[in-house]
């Protein structure tokens, strides 16, 4: 007499296969139904950061309150922020009275565990960094991921971007120490490689964008 199917060596394989197909199918349907919402949140978040990084410059030029510019995000984008062509990275220009008053670039680089993406806003001559923020990263939670915190990103505001035709080289100092020179950045404690990766990404991308601006 033959053994029942549930006692054959092939049963565990078939069982596992069926369970996998069922659960992956359920997940695929669930994810598919939520995808539009997730994408919409990502676009909102991206646009929010875009406006935040340019809002100080825009507020100074127009006299409009910064908070209002951020609150009326979509109107601010439609009125003042236009795409900028001619660069290999996604680029935007802040237009006021028909003149560009700032550029913003979507830059990419390598971190410790994976790629990272950031936005850097500069003046149209690439002399000065107006603002900077990492918006996507895969660094160690609680350590490297602190590059998204205000203390780290706000240090880049007003720093030199391109001086005498080449990118400004920054050096790192310990987090608890004050910067003694304008080219120093306080690193994230316990995340030296990540902090250096941010500096490298910024330098490489600014070099590339500056050279493309000359073409």
């Amino acid at each position, binding site marked *: 007499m033959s053994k029942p199917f549930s006692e054959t060596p092939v*049963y565990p394989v078939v069982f596992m296969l069926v369970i996998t197909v069922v659960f992956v199918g359920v997940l695929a349907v669930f994810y598919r139904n939520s995808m539009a919402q997730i994408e919409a949140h990502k676009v909102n978040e991206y646009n929010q950061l875009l406006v935040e990084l340019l809002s100080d410059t825009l507020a100074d030029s127009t006299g409009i309150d910064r908070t209002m510019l951020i609150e009326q995000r979509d109107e601010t984008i439609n009125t003042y922020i236009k795409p900028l062509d001619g660069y290999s990275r996604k680029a935007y220009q802040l237009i006021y009275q028909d003149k560009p008053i700032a550029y913003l670039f979507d830059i990419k680089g390598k971190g410790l565990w994976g790629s990272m993406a950031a936005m850097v806003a500069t003046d149209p001559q690439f002399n000065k960094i107006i603002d900077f923020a990492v918006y996507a990263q895969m660094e160690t939670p609680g350590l490297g991921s602190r590059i998204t915190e205000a203390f780290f990103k706000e240090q880049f505001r007003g720093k030199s971007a391109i001086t005498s035709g080449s990118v400004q080289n920054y050096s790192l100092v310990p987090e608890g120490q004050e910067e003694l020179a304008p080219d120093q950045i306080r690193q994230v404690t316990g995340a030296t490689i990540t902090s250096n990766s941010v500096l490298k990404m910024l330098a490489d991308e600014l070099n590339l964008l500056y050279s493309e601006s000359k073409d």
Partner: protein
Amino acid sequence: MTKKDIFINSAFRENSVWKQILGICSSLAVTNLMLNSLIMGLGVTFSLALANFTISALRTHTPRSVRMMVQTLIIAAYVIIVDVFLQANMPAISKQLGPYVGLIITNCILMGRAEAFAAQNNPIDSFIDGIGSGLGYTLVLLTIAAIRELFGFGSLFGIQILGDWWIRWSIMVMAPSAFFILAIFIWIINNKYYKVKA
């Protein structure tokens, strides 16, 4: 054992954190804010209850040789549902919790309850055990988070409780505070409830 006993046992008498010392990693990681802790706790409760129910419902058909793979697959599926739900409906909290939601899969409480309870009991009892274990875990998270958020930020659930006069204890916002608060909490429970002597 009655259904009430199952719940009380899994939530309090045999609490996963203070009695079994499971799920410690996430108990330390997400407890800087009460809202994060509540969402994490509810995520674990949801995954645990439904994973327990499903594992129990399939237990008589699951071959012993692949049972742990099946359990991991089922747990992972429910955790991914929680993760996707948070990304779609609570993006700010999803971002704050970061990788910890995905890491519910590796939370020892889920595999522990699957093996110790769901694989040997009926689906309804397993579901109740999952709810009890999850709420017991949430209770610990909220207790630690209440202390950390109150002293670290002066607030509870983001509502300012202590005024401007309060000098925030920055140690409470940092990870080490969770270590000693959890240790003190477990010590008090063991000493008072289980009468454990050092």
